[in-house]
C-alpha cells in the first residue's frame, strides 16, 4: 500500500521541528519539504550570533544527512507557488507538481514593513534571514550612522548587530512611548533605555516616521514632529507579518489582520490542510515565539500518529539577554492595582528593575518583569505557572542577592511539582529531567540535554536543568563532593573560608579544628598554600615547614639526582651588568650550571642542599631576593623593552612589568601564575600566553587574563581595554584574589576560567562591575598580602633554627650527600642520568 504523503511548506524552525517530532513517532508517511531559502532550517532565535563569528552551518538545526537519514525529501530554493485543493496538489517554482494527502503550512512570518514612503530605497533592510544579515553586513562597511525602526525584541537585536558591525552611531526609533511594549512597563523601559544609552545607542520613543529621505539611497529619516535624523542605513524591525498569501490564494480562511485560522488541532477550514508556527492564527492570536511554535508542531505530529493533543494557547513568558542586559517578563506582567498587589524593586545605580504582581490575598505570584538581573526568572516563572503558595514575604523573591541562583524563599526547585514545565521549547517537565537522571542514563548536563532535549532550544532553562540534575544526583547519594582527601571533608574553597573564619595559622591547628587523623601529602601542601595565601607568614615557621611541598620546604626546586636549583628574582627581566657578574661569580664558586629561562631570568642548577644558605647569603648581599621558582605563586613578569628604547613602543612596559612583579611577588596561589607586559601590539613579551597579560595601547593598557602555555596552550582573553595604570592594577588585584579564593587546588587560571559558569563574561562582571560585591574586600586583602611581603630566603638564612635544616645528614651536618653525581657537558656540569637497577 502506498504511504500517505505529507507536504510541508516551509523549512524554518517549526517546519523542521515538525519533521523531527513526526519521525520520532513514526517512520510511515512520505514527507516532502519545500523551502524558499537556499539552506536547511537554522536557528533564527540566535540569528545575531551570525555577527559574532557563528557560521550559517553553526546555526543549522540539522546535519547535512539528516533529511536523508530520516527518509524525508527536502527541496531548497524551491517555494510552492500555487495550491490546488480539489486535486490535492502543489505547484512549485521549478514547474513541477506534487500530490498530498496532508498539507502543512509552516511558512512562518516575514518582516512587517510599515507603509512609509521610501522603504524601497537602497540601504533599507529588514532583519529576518541570513541573507538579510549578509546584505546588512556588506552595506554597513560604508555606513557611519544607522537607524532601526522598532524598539521591540527584534529591533534591539538588530541594533546590537549594527553595533557589532562597527557603526559609530546607531539609533532606535519606536512609535510607542516605551521599549519592548509587549513585554515591559514604562519604568522597566526607562531602566532599559538608560542602560542602552550607556552602551552608546540613541533611543527615540514616541516617534512616528513619516518618510525615508534620500536620492536613490537613504540619507535621513523624517518624523511627524518635523524633526530629521541622518542615517546612512536603516533596518526595519517593526514586527512580523504571517506568511499567509499562499493560503489566502487557494481559499483557506485567514484572519482580518493576517494569519491562517486554525483550531486546537492546528486544522484549517480544509480538513486536509494544517498550519503551525508564526503563520497560524489561533484564537485570534499569532504566537511569535519559538516555544509555542514547537508545541504546535508537537500537537500536529502527535495527532497524525493517532494521538489526541490540543493546542490551547501558550505562556508567552520570555527571558533574553539583549546586548548583555537581562530582560524578562512572565505571566500576567501588566496587571495593575486594584486587581493585584505590585512589588517593585529598583536600583538605578546598577540598572536593575524588578516588578512582581501578587494576588490580592498574597497567596500567588501572577506575573512580573525583570530588567538588568533575571537570575530569578526560572524560579519566578515556575512559582507563577504552578501556582505555588508564596511565603509571607513575597518581596524576598526579588530581593535575593544579585548573582545568587535562587531567591531566598521556600520556593526552591524541590517544591515544584513533577509536572512543572522546565523547558518550554521542548516541552520537558521536571519529572522528565529528574527521572532521566535517576534511572542512570545521564550524569552530566550534556547527557541530560541529549537524552531529554531540555535546554536545546533557547537555552534559557539550562541553569534550572542543571540544578535539577545536581539535586537528583545528590538525593541519590551520587553527587561526588569535591573534597580534598580522606583527612578533610571540604573543598579547597570551603577550607579557605573556614581557615579564615577560625583564624587558624598552622597546619596542625587546621587539622585539629577541621580535619581528622594525621594528614597526607595531598592536604598538607594544600593547607600550607591556603595559610600562605591568607596570612603570608614565613612558610618555614616551625610546624608548618614539614607541611610544605618538598620545593617549598627547602625554598628551591629539587632536581634529578637530589641537588637543587637557585633562581633569584629578576623583575621584568631587567638586570644590571654588576648583578650579572655576581650571578656568574656565585655560579663559578659553587660549581653551578647556568641557563637563561623562558621567564627572562637565570637558573643556577646543581646546588647541594648544604650550600643553599651560603649561596643565597651571597646573592642577598648583592641585592637579589628569592624568585619563588619553587612556589605556587607569582613566577615572572616578562617584558619587552618598551618605549624607553623601542621605536614602536607606546609605553614603558619594563617599568610596568617591574612594578607588577614587585607588587605580587611571594603571594601564594592555587598554582603558579605568570605575567608579561608588552609595549605595543607587536606583543614581543607574549603577554597573551600568560595568566594575566598587559599590552600597551595608544590610550592605556589592554588587560588579558587566563592564558596558558604548557601542554594545553590557550590564548588569554581580553578582560578590559584602554585602562589607566591604576585601574589596570586594581583589576589584577581583584582577579588574583578571586582566583586565589575560588580555584581548585593545582588549577591554573586558564582551567579555572574554563570551568567557570558564564566564562569570561561572568568573570568580567565580577572584576569590573563588582557583581559579587567583593571588590573592596579583595583589594584590602591583597594590600595586606603585599604589605607583609618578606624575602623568604633572607629570613631563612638569618634564622639559625631554619638554617640548620639545610643539611643532608642530621648526624654529620658538614657532609654533603655523597651519592649526588654530575657529568660534564658542553663545558658545564649536568646531572647524571636516573640510576637504573
Amino acid at each position: 500500500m502506498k504511504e500517505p504523503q505529507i507536504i510541508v511548506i516551509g523549512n524554518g524552525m517549526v517546519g523542521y521541528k515538525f519533521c523531527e517530532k513526526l519521525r520520532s513517532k513514526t517512520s510511515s508517511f512520505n514527507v516532502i519539504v519545500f523551502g524558499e531559502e537556499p539552506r536547511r532550517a537554522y536557528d533564527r532565535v540566535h540569528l545575531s550570533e551570525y555577527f559574532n563569528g557563528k557560521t550559517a552551518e553553526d546555526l543549522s538545526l540539522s546535519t547535512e544527512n539528516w533529511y536523508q537519514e530520516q527518509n524525508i525529501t527536502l527541496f531548497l530554493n524551491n517555494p510552492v507557488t500555487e495550491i490546488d485543493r480539489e486535486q490535492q496538489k502543489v505547484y512549485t517554482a521549478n514547474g513541477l507538481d506534487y500530490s498530498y494527502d496532508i498539507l502543512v503550512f509552516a511558512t512562518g512570518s516575514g518582516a512587517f514593513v510599515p507603509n512609509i514612503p521610501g522603504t524601497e530605497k537602497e540601504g533599507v533592510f529588514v532583519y529576518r534571514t541570513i541573507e538579510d544579515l549578509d546584505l546588512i553586513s556588506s552595506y554597513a562597511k560604508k555606513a557611519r550612522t544607522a537607524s532601526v525602526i522598532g524598539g521591540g525584541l527584534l529591533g534591539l537585536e538588530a541594533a546590537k548587530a549594527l553595533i557589532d558591525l562597527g557603526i559609530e552611531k546607531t539609533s532606535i526609533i519606536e512609535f510607542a512611548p516605551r521599549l519592548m511594549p509587549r513585554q515591559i512597563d514604562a519604568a522597566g523601559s526607562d531602566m532599559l533605555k538608560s542602560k542602552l544609552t550607556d552602551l552608546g545607542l540613541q533611543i527615540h520613543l514616541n516617534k512616528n516616521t513619516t518618510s525615508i529621505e534620500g536620492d536613490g539611497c537613504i540619507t535621513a529619516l523624517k518624523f511627524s514632529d518635523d524633526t530629521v535624523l541622518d542615517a546612512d542605513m536603516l533596518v526595519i524591525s517593526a514586527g512580523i507579518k504571517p506568511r499567509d498569501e499562499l493560503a489566502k490564494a487557494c481559499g483557506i480562511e485567514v484572519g482580518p489582520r493576517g494569519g491562517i485560522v486554525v483550531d486546537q488541532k492546528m486544522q484549517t477550514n480544509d480538513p486536509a490542510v494544517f498550519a503551525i508556527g508564526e503563520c497560524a492564527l489561533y484564537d485570534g492570536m499569532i504566537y511569535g515565539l519559538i516555544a509555542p511554535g514547537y508545541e504546535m508542531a508537537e500537537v500536529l505530529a502527535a495527532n497524525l500518529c493517532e494521538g489526541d493533543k490540543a493546542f490551547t494557547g501558550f505562556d508567552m513568558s520570555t527571558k533574553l539577554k539583549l546586548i548583555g542586559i537581562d530582560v524578562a517578563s512572565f505571566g500576567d506582567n501588566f496587571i495593575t492595582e486594584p486587581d493585584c498587589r505590585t512589588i517593585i524593586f529598583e536600583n538605578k545605580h546598577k540598572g536593575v528593575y524588578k516588578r512582581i504582581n501578587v494576588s490580592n490575598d498574597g497567596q500567588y505570584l501572577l506575573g512580573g518583569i525583570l530588567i538588568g538581573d533575571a537570575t530569578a526568572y526560572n524560579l519566578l516563572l515556575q512559582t507563577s505557572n504552578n501556582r505555588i503558595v508564596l511565603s509571607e514575604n513575597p518581596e524576598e523573591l526579588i530581593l535575593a542577592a544579585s548573582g545568587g541562583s535562587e531567591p531566598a524563599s521556600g520556593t526552591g526547585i524541590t517544591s515544584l511539582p513533577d509536572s512543572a514545565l522546565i523547558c518550554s521549547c521542548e516541552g520537558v517537565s521536571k519529572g522528565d529531567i529528574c527521572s532521566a537522571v535517576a534511572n542512570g542514563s545521564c550524569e552530566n548536563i550534556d547527557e541530560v540535554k541529549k537524552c531529554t532535549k531540555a535546554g536545546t532550544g533557547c537555552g534559557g532553562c539550562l541553569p534550572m536543568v542543571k540544578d535539577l540534575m545536581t539535586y537528583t544526583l545528590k538525593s541519590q547519594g551520587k553527587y561526588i563532593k569535591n573534597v580534598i582527601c580522606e583527612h578533610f571533608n571540604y573543598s579547597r574553597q570551603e577550607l579557605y573560608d573556614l581557615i579564615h573564619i577560625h583564624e587558624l595559622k598552622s597546619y596542625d591547628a587546621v587539622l585539629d579544628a577541621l580535619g581528622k587523623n594525621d594528614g597526607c601529602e595531598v592536604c598538607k601542601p594544600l593547607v600550607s598554600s591556603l595559610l600562605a595565601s591568607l596570612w603570608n607568614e614565613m612558610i618555614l615557621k616551625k610546624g608548618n615547614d614539614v607541611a610544605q611541598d618538598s620545593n617549598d620546604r627547602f625554598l628551591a626546586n629539587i632536581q634529578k639526582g637530589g641537588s637543587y636549583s637557585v633562581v633569584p628574582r629578576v623583575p621584568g627581566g631587567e638586570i644590571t651588568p654588576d648583578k650579572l657578574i655576581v650571578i656568574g661569580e656565585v655560579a663559578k664558586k659553587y660549581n653551578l650550571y647556568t641557563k637563561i629561562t623562558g621567564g627572562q631570568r637565570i637558573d643556577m642548577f646543581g646546588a647541594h642542599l648544604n650550600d643553599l644558605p651560603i649561596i643565597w647569603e651571597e646573592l642577598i648581599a648583592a641585592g637579589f631576593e628569592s624568585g619563588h621558582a619553587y612556589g605556587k605563586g607569582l613566577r615572572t613578569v616578562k617584558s619587552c623593552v618598551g618605549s624607553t628604547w623601542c621605536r614602536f613602543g607606546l609605553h614603558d612596559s619594563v617599568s610596568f612589568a617591574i612594578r607588577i612583579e614587585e607588587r605580587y611577588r611571594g603571594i601564594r596561589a592555587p598554582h603558579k601564575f605568570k605575567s608579561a607586559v608588552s609595549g605595543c601590539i607587536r606583543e614581543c613579551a607574549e603577554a597573551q600566553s600568560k595568566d594575566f597579560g598587559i599590552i600597551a595601547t595608544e590610550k592605556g593598557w589592554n588587560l588579558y587574563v587566563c592564558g596558558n602555555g604548557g601542554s594545553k596552550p590557550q590564548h588569554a582573553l581580553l578582560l578590559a581595554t584602554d585602562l589607566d595604570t591604576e585601574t589596570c592594577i586594581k583589576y589584577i588585584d581583584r582577579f588574583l584574589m578571586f582566583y586565589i579564593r575560588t580555584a581548585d587546588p593545582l588549577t591554573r587560571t586558564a582551567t579555572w576560567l574554563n570551568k567557570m559558569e558564564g566564562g569570561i563574561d561572568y568573570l568580567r562582571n565580577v572584576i569590573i562591575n563588582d557583581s559579587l560585591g567583593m571588590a573592596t574586600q579583595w583589594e584590602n586583602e591583597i594590600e595586606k598580602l603585599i604589605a607583609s611581603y618578606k624575602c623568604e630566603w633572607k629570613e631563612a638564612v638569618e634564622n639559625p633554627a631554619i638554617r640548620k635544616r639545610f643539611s643532608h645528614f642530621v648526624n654529620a651536618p658538614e657532609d654533603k650527600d655523597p651519592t649526588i653525581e654530575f657529568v660534564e657537558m658542553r663545558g658545564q656540569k649536568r646531572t647524571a642520568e636516573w640510576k637504573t637497577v
Partner: protein
Amino acid sequence: MENSLINNLSKPYKNLKIMNEQSNWLAACRVEDAIENGGVCVKHGEDQIALFYFTRRNEWYATQNECPHKKQMALSRGMIGSATDEPKVACPFHKKTFSLSTGECLSGDECAIKTYPVKIENGTVYIGTTPKS
C-alpha cells in the same frame, strides 16, 4: 612547643616495642635534633637511613633513605601522613608512598623499602641497623 616536647618525652612512645634481639644500635641524634612530624637523614657509614619523628602519633620510624622508584636519596625529605590508619611517607620526587611500619609500597608496584627499629634512651635516638624487613 617546649611543653609539647616534654609531654611527649614523658610518655612512652607508642610503637617502640622492646626489641632486645637488636644488637647494633646506632646513636643517630638527639630527640631535639629530629624534626617534628618530619624526617631527617642519618649517615650510617656508606648507608643513609631516614628517621621520622611522627609527633602527631607520638611514634618514631626509620627506613632506608633511597626511594626505590628512581633510586633517589630523598625519603627523609618527604611528607609523612596516614592512609586510613597506616603511617606513610611520600617521596618528594614523584609522590610514591610507602608504609612507615612495614615498608610496603602503597602506590603502584615499586618494591618495598627497608624499615629499622628505633629506640629512645636518655633523649638520644637509636636506630637498630639490622633491618626489620
